[in-house]
């Protein structure tokens, strides 16, 4: 058995596989399938300072090898999360990452303060949600605004801070550098790509919000290329996500430079996907005589 332990932003993970925010709720729902302790970490459902009801349905549409979603950050708010959901997760033997979202800098700051005082292991700052009218993606879309919000949040928390980046930009590497310069401890990428489907009979977009975020295997090559670019542009750890469904995908992500890998949409069709990926990754390392998973990070040999 190879060593699967990795360290991201000072936090030890027993393996590099993390369930992606928005696809795993607050963890409870998947405990029937396997103990959460098998996972390296859990990135929880995006949480805002105040409760959010989310968008009207339909919130999901199927696409070729993927899905579009426009949930719109439905969540019970950070106080409810800390009182009702977090205690249940703390003794599960996995890293707990709060995904923090908002629509104004002040909300983000209050949220970060609340999370800073909680027992979460890490904060993933979501400046890349495409499904809310204000804030979200707009914070992550330019170097200036991304740097600005990370600067504020960095003042509000000493927890390890990972910033989740949007792919809906011209140059994701420069945004990663901008948040690194403001004290981000890690970056995760990619959030979803903006997409759309139309019902040709009603001539209505399938999603009530008209557009939504594309995820699933369709986006994997896009995510991989962006992870590779970012990993070559920053010194902080990179967590790769976007369409990962198999252990081979996770190894590709790590070869491209990811220290951790998140799994999301794949769980909709196979709830065991993260566990199968951990097992497959371990067997591949053994077969290749690699004693430590850290040895493959960034080891792609580009032409």
């Amino acid at each position, binding site marked *: 058995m190879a060593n699967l332990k990795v360290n991201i932003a000072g936090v030890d993970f027993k393996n590099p596989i993390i369930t992606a925010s*928005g*696809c*795993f*709720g607050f963890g409870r*729902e*998947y405990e*029937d*399938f396997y103990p959460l302790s098998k996972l390296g970490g859990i990135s929880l*459902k995006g949480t805002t300072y105040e409760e959010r*009801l*989310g*968008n*009207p*349905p*339909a*919130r*999901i*549409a*199927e*696409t070729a*090898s*993927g*899905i579009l*979603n426009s*949930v719109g950050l*439905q969540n019970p708010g950070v106080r409810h999360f800390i009182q009702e959901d977090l205690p249940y997760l703390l003794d599960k033997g996995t890293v707990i990452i709060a995904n923090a979202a908002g629509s104004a800098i002040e909300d983000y700051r209050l949220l970060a303060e609340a999370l800073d005082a909680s027992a979460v292991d890490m904060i993933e700052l979501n400046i890349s949600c495409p499904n809310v009218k204000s804030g979200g993606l707009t914070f992550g879309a330019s170097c200036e605004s991304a740097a600005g919000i990370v600067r504020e949040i960095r003042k509000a928390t000493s927890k390890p801070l990972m910033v989740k980046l949007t792919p809906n930009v011209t140059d994701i590497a420069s945004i990663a550098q901008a948040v690194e310069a403001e004290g981000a401890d890690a970056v995760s990428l990619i959030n979803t790509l903006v997409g759309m489907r139309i019902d040709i009979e009603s001539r209505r977009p399938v999603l009530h919000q008209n557009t939504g975020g594309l995820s*699933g*295997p369709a986006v994997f090559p896009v995510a991989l290329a962006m992870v590779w670019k970012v990993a070559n542009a920053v010194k902080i750890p990179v967590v790769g996500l976007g369409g990962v469904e198999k252990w081979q995908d996770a190894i590709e992500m790590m070869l491209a430079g990811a220290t951790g890998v998140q799994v999301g*949409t794949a*769980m*909709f*069709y*196979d*709830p*065991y996907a993260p566990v199968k990926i951990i097992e497959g990754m371990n067997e591949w390392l053994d077969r290749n005589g690699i004693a430590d998973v850290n040895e493959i990070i960034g080891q792609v040999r580009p032409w």
Partner: protein
Amino acid sequence: MSYIQNVYPIQSRTAIARDVFDVLVHCPELAAQSRAGQFVHIRVPGHTLRRPISICEVDRAKGTIRLVYEVRGSGTEALSNLTTGDLMDIMGPLGNGFTLLEPDAKAIVVGGGIGTPPMLETAKHYAENCTAILGFRDAAHVILDEDFDACGCDVRLATDDGSRGHHGFVTDLLRQRLAEESADIIYACGPKGMLKAVADLAAEFGVRCQVSLEERMGCGVGACLVCACKVARENGDPTYKHVCKDGPVFEAKEVIF
């Protein structure tokens, strides 16, 4: 209750109306836990999303569940290619199911089109104390009427074109039935317009009513929050609950149609 996901053999598959398939799956551990009004989430070859299909009947002794579904798009079409002997990847049982009263209570089940199958297991519970009001487009689309007959309930049919049973809506028959005699509970599944009309009638006659809702679904277990339906909180304020975990069955008075 706990969720199970595994592959199970299809024992039989029959077309029972145009584009409607009747499938019996051998899945003892799933059948052992399934209740009336719950559903299963089925993986579809070549598709990212599973398809939620309501459970029509459960036979714990034989270890089977019966699924009756209509081909509506590419997903259910791909599903319909699975036949006897093939394996079906099923997650379930999911959702809350109907609240069943004592079997001697007076119950009415209302099924509209492909909303009919989930009512059968509930009708069986009440047998002769149940009135089944079933509505379809036309005679060619009538399904399961003989199954409802066989469980002893009073079956009343309606079709949109009058080619079978009452020419008109299920709500005409429901009003008639409620005028004859009161009921302890009404259960309904079908198009949203029908559910709203049934809920209004139930309120008018002061009868408890549960409706089974449908919405485009993701994970099926309450994690992704896409299958939202608007309901009223206790203080009357609107919020979104989720069909997969909080439902698919809701008290009609709670739903904001």
